[in-house]
């Protein structure tokens, strides 16, 4: 079931095509590479920000629909420019650092929250070669990067010199730490099945039989654990204790305004999109179409390596990944208006007493099944 990288056609490799093109103009390989470098960075930033804008718009519109309201309507058609207006407003607002706050930590906090989240986009694949870097430890990189975030939150909470901020920061740290473990264990079960930490290999292992080979059928419990933990990591509504407005004003964000607040805002939404993308990659077959693309291509009598076919498969890959991710985002938004916020003790109970044992059992069962049925659970 696992397709070795050598078998996969070189296909759409944008980097090599780009550098070859530049070398064709007479540039040295080094210079061509240097010119290539800013493009993926820019792409990640643009993709992340556009993802957030879409996410914010969806959040506002779906929230409105659930509550039988209209939602933003006048900024652009159907209020599509509303997130832009929100962002611009924050950009132009005064950037206040409270008098008794620790200026350096106060500034560093939001940066430390945002940077790892954007960095994690490196490992999100939209196709066989459509990712920034196919690091061997892909998914592990994401897990380790996501544990930098609570440091930033704690920093922001502590530096604000405000009791609500401090409590919010402490809660955020406690929450992130306790939900990271079941999250990592759920990922570990997947990794065990696909014999690789690389996100591309994880998706390739799910492409055999279309929708039937997706990991969600083999790891339903892992999927639920991962989704719950991802919501908790993103501080989405059943678990948004760090910024519980009824008790903590806005948690660690209380003293923030202007662009620094926007960084937190951006960070939390990028994190949501990222988590949804990773759920899609780990459990819903990543860029895979519900029917295997190879079958469809074979039916139409085309070669998989034909340029047009490759462009089409790459496009469907991107569309499928984004579609799956936004389906999950929609689910998260719906969940936001369905479930009430848990208490802090319930939150920690759920993390340590429920998800952790279940995740361990899941890992154990997966290991057993892998030994018993290597054909279905990755040999």
């Amino acid at each position, binding site marked *: 079931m696992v397709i070795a990288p050598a078998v996969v056609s070189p296909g759409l490799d944008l980097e090599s095509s780009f550098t070859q093109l530049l070398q064709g103009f007479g540039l040295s390989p080094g210079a061509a590479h240097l010119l290539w470098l800013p493009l993926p960075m820019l792409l990640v930033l643009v993709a992340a920000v556009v993802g957030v804008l879409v996410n914010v718009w969806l959040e506002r519109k779906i929230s*409105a629909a*659930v509550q039988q309201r*209209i939602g933003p309507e006048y900024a652009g058609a159907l209020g599509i420019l509303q997130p832009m207006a929100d962002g611009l407003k924050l950009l132009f607002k005064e950037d206040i650092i409270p008098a008794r706050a620790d200026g350096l930590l106060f500034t560093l906090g939001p940066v430390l929250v945002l940077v790892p989240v954007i960095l994690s986009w490196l490992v999100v694949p939209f196709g066989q070669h459509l990712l920034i870097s196919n690091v061997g430890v892909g998914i592990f990189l994401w897990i380790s990067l996501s544990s930098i975030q609570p440091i930033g939150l704690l920093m922001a909470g502590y530096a604000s010199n405000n009791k609500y901020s401090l409590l919010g920061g402490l809660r955020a740290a406690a929450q992130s730490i306790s939900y990271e473990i079941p999250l990592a264990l759920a990922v570990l079960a997947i990794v065990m099945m696909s014999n690789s930490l690389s996100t591309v290999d994880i998706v390739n292992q799910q492409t055999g039989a279309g929708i039937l080979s997706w990991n969600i059928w083999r790891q339903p419990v892992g999927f639920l654990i991962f989704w719950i933990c991802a919501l908790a990591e993103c501080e989405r509504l059943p678990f948004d204790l760090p910024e519980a407005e009824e008790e903590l004003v806005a948690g660690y964000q209380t003293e923030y305004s202007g662009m620094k607040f926007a960084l937190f805002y951006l960070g939390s939404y990028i994190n949501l999109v990222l988590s949804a993308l990773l759920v899609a990659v780990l459990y819903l077959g990543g860029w895979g179409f519900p029917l295997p693309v190879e079958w469809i291509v074979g039916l139409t009598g085309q070669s998989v390596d034909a340029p047009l076919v490759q462009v089409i498969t790459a496009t469907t890959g991107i569309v499928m990944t984004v579609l799956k991710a936004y389906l999950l985002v929609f689910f998260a938004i719906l969940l936001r208006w*369905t479930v009430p916020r848990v208490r802090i003790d319930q939150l920690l109970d759920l993390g340590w007493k429920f998800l952790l044992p279940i995740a361990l059992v899941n890992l154990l069962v997966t290991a057993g099944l892998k030994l018993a049925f290597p054909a279905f659970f990755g040999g």
Partner: protein
Amino acid sequence: MFGFLKKVGDYTRDAVGAANYLTQGLSVTFDHLRRRPITVQYPYEKLIPSERYRGRIHYEFDKCIACEVCVRVCPINLPVVDWVMNKATKKKELRNYSIDFGVCIFCGNCVEYCPTNCLSMTEEYELAAFDRHSLNYDNIALGRLPTSVSSDPAVTPLRELAYLPKGEMDPHGVDPTRPRAGQLPAQVLETLPKAAAAAATTAPAAEETNG
């Protein structure tokens, strides 16, 4: 051993129950997605105030006899009736009349008791002001009629739920000529037999004369 198994069983049952409740809740929120918004987009759309709506009070200076009944029935003696006795004609001469709507609670007692019906309730409810003293209306301001919601060309009037035709939940796009659900008293009278109708119309009148 069995104790442990029972614990695991209870745990599983709890988890399944929680999942069940969660799906029930999700189905409720999901169902709301397909319902139409009930929003009334306020400055452009306004609800028609219900009949007997107690809005800003209208006052007709020429009808007023300066009896001050309105002041007596007012819970806080709010209306200011400024009159002088004309010694020659031996009659009260009204100079000014004012009500401070920043203080008024719109109970309608003054309207109820005014012997000459010079006070009445309007449908006006947009009384927001930058300075509360500007809400102290004198007899000129009290005499102005508000723009009614249904005659204002800039506003789409919407009917409240009780005034909608039967089966309609959303006021948007409902034909204004369609009658509301139920019957008005006059329509009920038409359905009654002649004798009963006559009795029904005379009875309240008789009551009034007796009382």
